[in-house]
């Protein structure tokens, strides 16, 4: 689905060849500062390679409109900014920014359930903890219903139990809906437990690529 050809980003990334497969779950692991976030940002055109090219569905990413691309390939950033207002407004912000029709509270409550947030929709966001904010940010991209999910350490601020629940939910959702997921994680265990493919990044290079063959579907 994504194919990197001779991609470099400044001195940070050097990936002569790398691909991310359609309708698969790929996890990126590696030390902090190794370039994982930079790779995700290149996948949704928040950054463009300084050298080489990325092919998305047989088309050079440079020839695809950035905004349209980001609507298909949604990203949860590592430190997602939360907007002023209440929970409902924050969940709907993506749709609002994309100038789409806004769904009713039923759909919003469905997402709240998915991300295990149990608070009134009218609560102001400053009442939320770090972990709750992270799940709120996950919820707001679930509502966008994109083709591809890019998640940058989505469980970094969560305790072990919540992390497990959220991982189960996200991977289950992606498989059920036949979507593609690329996820950065700090945990090797999570990477291997949920992924079809694990890519280890060292200093901006692909150090190891492992397929999880036990999984079939």
């Amino acid at each position, binding site marked *: 689905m994504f194919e990197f050809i001779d991609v470099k980003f400044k001195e940070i990334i050097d990936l002569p060849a790398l691909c991310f497969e359609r309708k698969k779950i790929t996890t990126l692991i590696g030390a902090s500062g190794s370039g994982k976030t930079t790779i995700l940002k290149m996948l*949704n*055109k*928040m*950054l*463009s390679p300084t050298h080489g090219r990325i092919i998305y569905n047989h088309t050079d990413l440079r020839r695809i409109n*950035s*905004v349209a691309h*980001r*609507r298909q390939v*949604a*990203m949860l*950033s590592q430190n*997602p*900014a939360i*907007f002023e207002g209440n929970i409902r407004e924050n969940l709907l*912000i*993506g749709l609002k*920014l*994309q*100038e789409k029709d806004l769904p009713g509270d039923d759909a919003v409550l469905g997402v709240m359930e998915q991300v295990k947030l149990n608070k009134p929709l009218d609560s102001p966001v400053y009442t939320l903890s770090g972990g709750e904010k992270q799940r709120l940010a996950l919820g*707001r*991209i679930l509502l*966008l219903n994109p083709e591809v999910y890019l998640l940058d350490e989505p469980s970094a601020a969560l305790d072990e139990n919540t992390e497990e629940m959220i991982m189960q939910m996200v991977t289950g959702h992606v498989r059920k809906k036949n979507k593609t997921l690329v996820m950065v994680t700090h945990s090797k265990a999570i990477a291997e437990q949920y992924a079809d493919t694990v890519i280890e990044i060292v200093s901006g290079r692909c150090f190891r690529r492992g397929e999880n063959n036990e999984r079939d579907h």
Partner: protein
Amino acid sequence: MNGIIDLTAWQVALAYLFVLLVLAIVRMRGINREKEILISSVRMTLQLILVGYILVYLFDYPNPWLTAGIVLCMEAFAVYTVLNRFNDQLVKPLKYIIAIAMSAGTLACLAYFLLVVVRLTPWYAPQYFIPIAGMLIGNSMTGVVLGLKLLLDGMTTQKALVEEALILGATPRAASRNIINNAFDSAILPTINSMIGMGVVFLPGMMTGQILAGIAPITAIAYQIAIMLGILGAVALTVIIMLQLGYRTFFNQEDQLCSR
């Protein structure tokens, strides 16, 4: 008390007593401002004397080219003042946009005001053209400075939110909507406030000048009302053109935030 009391040079000099008063105050309190106070008083005096002679000449020999030339100089000076104020914070395209917005906004309002509202004949009559152009351009300049400051501040302090909006699939326009609206609102607020206080809290300079010069207050007031509305229009138009074109310079061709 009919007619106009002419001020002699000697009488004007008497008004310098106010400057001496201020100088005495700052000296006594040890506030280090004497130089600026002196320089600004002298500068103001010399500039106005110079302008006076230019106006005398213009009024004696009305000429479309001269009028147009003076207005162009005012525009250039206003643009220069804005660019100078923000010096190194502006990328080149934004500088061009400021010049375009200020010229287009003020000239459009000026043309409407003089040709449709006042119905000036000949169109270049300097007694009207120059002071009205001065007021529209001067107020627009203040508005642009305010709007630009809020645009630059917003794009810096709210950078994370703008970036997040882009990540969520917003167009650059949608991602900066709040910043643009806030900047526009703040830029026209002083004009709105001055209309609220008009005639109650203060009498505006133009009207005071006209009344002092012997024009009937009702005529002076009619002009003042029209000019206030003209100023509001010019400020709003100039600022919105600047913002609507200017926000884009913070993004690149790929709809990513430019690093600057």
